[in-house]
């Protein structure tokens, strides 16, 4: 995607700057941005290290098992035809937990593993199964408990209170997730009726 977007951004910027006489501004911004990103990344390192350290502790304890137990009833509602106690269910759960804990790097491989498992159980190999749709929607819902990246951005830009956004983020995330889940359930029902 960025192979297309990135050159478009740069080319239209330069062409537009030449036409509108903003080329000096644009030239200055190249240096400014390239310099700013260093400062920005260095301030990102602190919080990112802290959080991956804390999350390493969480993943090395039985915390994950507790979270699985808490999530189980919700999983049963969202994925009604997932069999109990098999690896598919475990991978689906681990993916969701990794998302909640903000372990972006771990969440995607787990999610793809779960997709692989679900594809094996899928009766129509060329179309997404009901469970796959739900898994994808949950992964596009940003279920993160602590939005560390935004917190790092805010603190690097000198916010007086970087954390102030956490509760508003929860409200927005929960509403978005509910709409996504309900829409998916409706689509599943509609497309299944049409098929049968």
């Amino acid at each position: 995607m960025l192979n297309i977007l990135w050159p478009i951004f740069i080319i239209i910027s330069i062409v537009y700057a030449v036409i509108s006489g903003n080329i000096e501004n644009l030239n200055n911004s190249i240096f400014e941005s390239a310099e700013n990103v260093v400062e920005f990344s260095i301030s990102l390192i602190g919080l990112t290290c802290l959080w991956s350290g804390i999350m390493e502790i969480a993943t090395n304890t039985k915390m994950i098992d507790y979270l699985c137990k808490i999530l189980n009833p919700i999983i049963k509602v969202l994925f009604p035809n997932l069999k109990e106690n098999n690896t598919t269910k475990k991978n689906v759960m681990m993916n969701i937990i990794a998302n909640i804990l903000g372990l972006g790097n771990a969440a995607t491989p787990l999610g793809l593993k779960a997709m692989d498992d679900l594809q094996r159980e899928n009766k129509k190999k060329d179309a997404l199964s009901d469970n796959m749709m739900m898994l994808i929607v949950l992964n596009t819902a940003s279920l993160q408990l602590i939005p560390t990246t935004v917190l790092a951005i805010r603190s690097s830009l000198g916010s007086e209170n970087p954390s102030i956004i956490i509760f508003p983020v929860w409200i927005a995330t929960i509403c978005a997730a509910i709409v996504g889940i309900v829409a998916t359930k409706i689509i599943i029902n509609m497309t299944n009726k049409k098929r049968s």
Partner: protein
Amino acid sequence: MGIVRYISIVAMPIVILLIIANALKEKVAIFDIFLKGAKDGIEIVFKIFPTLVGLFVAIGMLRSSGVIEFIISIISPITNFFKFPNEILPLAMLRPISGSASMAVATDIIKNNGVDSFIGILASVIMGSTETTLYTIAVYTGSVRIKKTRFILVASLLADITGILVSIWVCRYFF
């Protein structure tokens, strides 16, 4: 406002407390494990650094050339009608497509409007409550080579739009 502020402020310390208290109970070598994880953090930032350089420069060029302003001026009659804050338009447009591009755009918006201003907070909330939907769908369906996606895009984009609208509403209400 008081409660929102309070919950937001205690959220992170409480999560840390729960994790550490639980680890103490299980008698694991907490600090050694912490260090192991913290080391990965450096790698994470190092890995995305080149991407960020490319995108921060590109987004900076879009802004300084006046392209962003131009696009906003075209769409603003529609967004003004819906009372949608124009400043966050670039973020709303890029967020579903690319994580690093939206990070660059969010940083740009937050910086230019002030980190604790209404727009700064709104951009932060949108960034925290939405995902790179199109990218995620592409990766997940592509990994099992499925072409028939049964309107999953509709459901996910509806969720994204909800996330953005609720963010605006919540920010207007609380800040």
